[in-house]
């Protein structure tokens, strides 16, 4: 006797293996970035070009530091999703899989370095 519902049997069996999760994540991160990007452009833009001591003092303040952390974290996650779509459109076969893995690792590494560096400056 089968206890699985028809829906449960169908989920994940399409060629994409998943549904709208990628698109939903893209929507959430893009809404977040619509707020974060202007905040980051003007906080980071204000201090870029200033002397070392001023930059360190600036990013020890909570607001610029948290804005920078969130923007680079969410930004690189958004990039990781977007670049995957581009690779899926233009690259095929083994190169596709290799390129996706490389770009995802690069995105997470960049986000990791950014978050570590800003926290280290801030604390």
């Amino acid at each position, binding site marked *: 006797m089968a206890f699985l519902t028809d829906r449960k049997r169908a989920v994940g069996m399409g060629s994409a293996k998943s549904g709208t999760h990628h698109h939903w994540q893209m929507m959430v991160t893009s809404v977040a970035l619509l707020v974060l990007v202007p905040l980051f452009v*003007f906080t980071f833009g204000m201090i870029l070009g200033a002397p070392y001591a001023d930059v360190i003092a600036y990013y020890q303040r909570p607001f610029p530091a948290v804005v920078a952390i969130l923007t680079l974290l969410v930004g690189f996650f958004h990039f990781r999703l977007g670049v995957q779509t581009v690779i899926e459109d233009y690259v095929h076969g083994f190169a596709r899989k290799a390129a996706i893995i490389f770009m995802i690792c690069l995105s997470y590494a960049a986000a990791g370095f950014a978050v570590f560096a800003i926290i280290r*400056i801030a604390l």
Partner: protein
Amino acid sequence: MRCRAGQCPPLKGTTMADVNRGNRPLSPHLTIYRPQWTSITSILVRITGNALLVAGLLIVWWFVAAATGPAAFALADGVLTSWFGKLVMLGSIWALWYHSLGGLRHLVWDSGRMLDVASSERAGQAMVALSVVLTVVTVIIL
């Protein structure tokens, strides 16, 4: 032997799964179309989004250098504030505003609005104009 699509027998030495894989005729696309507001503004969203990786990595390098010490910071800051760095930052500010407006257009589309060609074209023209205005405003403020 002629056969209808999807009903061709497998070629000798191949399995059903890899019949003529990668060597199928493609319908002509991209190259035969005259540029349109809808296509060009959409392609630019993709290009700007991916090009922002350069500025993103430069900014991460700048933060890592600032966390490392004055000597490392001097190098990274020197590159970002050089004429070449400023050119990259200027281009990236425009790319960032343009891509953000493109994302906004996608969110509007996702809500089921402005899906007709005329609205999409007007939105595309607005994206180009507004991104330039925002870039000029940003440069004036900063």
